């Protein structure tokens, strides 16, 4: 930052630890928090902008471990530019771009391309996820080391969309990433048990005549993988956990000291399979929407730490791939711009979690899982670390808005919350000290 770069004093906001305090951003860093912030701001040189955060929550910038930016390959659904605009509007200062692009992000070249696109866009840090296997085909390992050593510095590897179902391949991947402190993020879906699966398997799928996606297909893979992680002493991350049984297995594994982390999506914290009765493909997603009991188990899992993080699984799709018969519609929902409101609605407004907890599940823990050192620098009790990069999200929890996908920054419109009332709105976002969102609207991208 040049010495004349503006400094920002965020005044009167409530911090995650519950205190009301000023926050000073200077030279891209969190220069001061508390009474010292104002005195230092007034003493310092250069332009000073004030951000009035009275009545708002000041959060560490959010970190998403699970984002589909669709570029390269499906720029009609999303680009790095539009996806990171959506991320910024959702309060995210870092996203992990899943590897199932075309071509697949299974080489140093592709991950560097995505990383570069993210830097050029400037709305949010973009960390490419590397594919575990070549072409997501589940047959042989991709060059994980080359991706780790690339400028993209990949640490999270996933065949998301596909399960690494071959147990030998999964074991080798878990072992191999230890060389660079990486983590394998598993899309837990036993492929044979879910051939042609259209929705959660249960009485409702039988009534609707849609092929079932049984909970056991997720739980069996998670059970196998936690045992493999224990056996080889590696880190495992489980993507989009969707069933109560999975929560139980992960709880069991953590009690035994197995290094497993897990994520749940916003939609699995709020929506249930009952929505499938409409046959509206906007509700088609993988893993599918489950039962009310699963939703409650996931919320409790996040509250007690069994589930570590909320990952959006933001999955933009073009209108034509959703405006068709359920059985041929694409699976996935947008989520970046509604994640924090859904978390507030499902976890905070229900009394399951305070804002320190939200900072934990949406910032510090995902940053730790991905080994990011420039994000999520906040203590468990919600105290900001001064001197850390200024990735900050200011959030107004008191407004209520009706979700209108047409107003979203993402290129796609497949939001399952369309027409629903959700609380809260991101008002300001600082990415490494640069204001990418100001006063509820996109400002300017950060330049490198």
């Amino acid at each position, binding site marked *: 930052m040049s010495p004349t770069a503006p400094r920002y004093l965020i005044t009167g906001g409530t911090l995650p630890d519950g205190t009301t305090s000023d926050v000073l951003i200077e030279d891209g860093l969190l220069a001061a928090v508390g009474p010292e912030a104002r005195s230092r701001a007034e003493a310092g040189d250069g332009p000073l902008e004030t951000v009035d955060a009275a009545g708002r929550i000041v959060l560490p910038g959010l970190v998403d471990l699970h984002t589909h930016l669709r570029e390269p390959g499906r720029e009609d659904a999303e680009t790095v530019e539009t996806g990171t605009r959506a991320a910024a509007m959702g309060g995210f200062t870092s996203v992990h771009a899943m590897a199932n692009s075309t071509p697949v992000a299974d080489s140093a070249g592709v991950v560097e391309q995505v990383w570069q696109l993210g830097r050029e866009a400037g709305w949010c840090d973009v960390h490419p996820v590397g594919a575990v296997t070549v072409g997501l085909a589940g047959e042989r390992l991709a060059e994980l080391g080359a991706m780790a050593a690339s400028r993209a510095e990949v640490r999270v590897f996933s065949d998301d969309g596909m399960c690494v179902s071959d147990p030998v391949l999964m074991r080798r991947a878990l072992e191999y990433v230890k060389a660079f402190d990486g983590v394998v993020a598993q899309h837990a879906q036993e492929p044979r048990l879910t051939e042609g699966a*259209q929705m959660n*398997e*249960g*009485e*409702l*799928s*039988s*009534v*609707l*005549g*849609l092929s*079932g996606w*049984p909970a056991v297909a997720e739980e069996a893979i998670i059970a196998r993988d936690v045992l493999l992680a224990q056996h080889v002493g590696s880190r495992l991350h489980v993507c989009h956990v969707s069933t109560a049984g999975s929560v139980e297995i992960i709880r069991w594994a953590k009690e035994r000291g197995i290094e497993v982390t897990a994520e749940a999506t916003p939609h699995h914290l709020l929506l249930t399979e009952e929505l499938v009765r*409409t*046959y*509206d493909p906007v509700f088609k997603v993988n893993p599918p929407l489950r039962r009310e009991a699963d939703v409650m188990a996931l919320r409790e899992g996040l509250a007690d730490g069994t589930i570590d993080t909320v990952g959006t699984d933001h999955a933009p799709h073009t209108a*034509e791939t959703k*405006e*068709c*018969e*359920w*059985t*041929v519609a694409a699976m996935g929902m947008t989520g970046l711009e509604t994640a924090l409101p859904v978390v507030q609605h499902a976890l905070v407004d229900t009394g399951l979690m305070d804002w320190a907890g939200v900072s934990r599940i949406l910032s510090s823990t995902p940053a730790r899982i991905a080994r990011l050192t420039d994000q999520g620098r906040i203590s468990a009790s919600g105290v900001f670390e001064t001197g850390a990069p200024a990735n900050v999200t200011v959030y107004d929890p008191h407004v209520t808005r009706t979700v209108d996908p047409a107003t979203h920054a993402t290129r796609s419109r497949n939001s399952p919350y369309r027409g629903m009332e959700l609380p809260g709105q991101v008002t300001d976002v600082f990415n490494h000290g640069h204001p990418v969102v100001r006063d509820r609207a996109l400002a300017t991208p950060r330049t490198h």
Partner: protein
Amino acid sequence: MKHLLSTQDLSLADALRILDTAEEMSAVSGREVKKLPALRGRTVVNLFLEDSTRTRISFEAAAKRLSADVINFTGKGTSVSKGESLKDTVQTLEAIGADAIVMRHWGSGAAAQLAGSGWITSSVVNAGDGTHEHPTQALLDALTLRRHLARRHGTGPRGTDLAGMKVVIVGDILHSRVARSNLWLLTTLGAEVTLAAPPTLVPVGVEQWPCHVTYSLDEAIAAGPDAVMMLRVQSERMHEAFFPSAAEYTRSWGLTDDRLALLESAGAADAVIMHPGPMNRGLEISAAAADSVRNTALEQVANGVSVRMAVLYLVLSGTDTAGTPDLVPSAARRPEA
């Protein structure tokens, strides 16, 4: 009644209204001039995106007997592979002048989606969607059973339900839209339904459904049913490990000569055999059972035309009032143009 999408959401009053209207329609089919002017000037499109000659010609005959113009549109495969979306297809058909779209579709929920999409304003009649529902098949089966019961009681069928009737549905329940539609409709009408199938072909969660389930067809027949409905079984299912072989399926769940004899002795004296067709002789039904006088297959086909006339009339006549329309007498009074 704007659409007919499923029997699960069909009320008892609406079901009786369709069946009673079908009785009126069936009187027409017995006349020398099998034609009513009721839907003159209206256009019915049969949009069949999955092979089904029987159902299509039944709907076609029904629409023509009501003097509607009929357009048949058949296609195979997915909208994606055809290159045209369902939305564009149905909007094109409506622009041509469709008042009702009778749709057979490979995808479960396609009819409900069409009716709820806002893409078109036409009435939608579900002629079978994936493994979800086939409501007119269930209605024609109910019409057949109701007439059967009326004959037994020596009364007319109009206004009656199926209270106390014991019906066994046998076979591939899991993949059968006929089984689902029949289960909902027959139980709405007061019948007791038993599903008999190998455990692999019983849907998950069936214990929450309003029926008995047995893995033993012999037990189901020994319990003395009024009707045994045999579902078509695709022999390919054995390749997906639903059952080991066609021969084992037939031995355990086929209506064999032995089970026909058991039905003769243990079932109701006038117990009937039903089949939605086409039959796999030698697999789910033996030749003797197929050719038995108890088999109502042809009566079912004839009733299918009456039921489909009733449904088309009701969805296109735009009357939402309960009760049976005074259709045939008033229509018959109208001079033929």
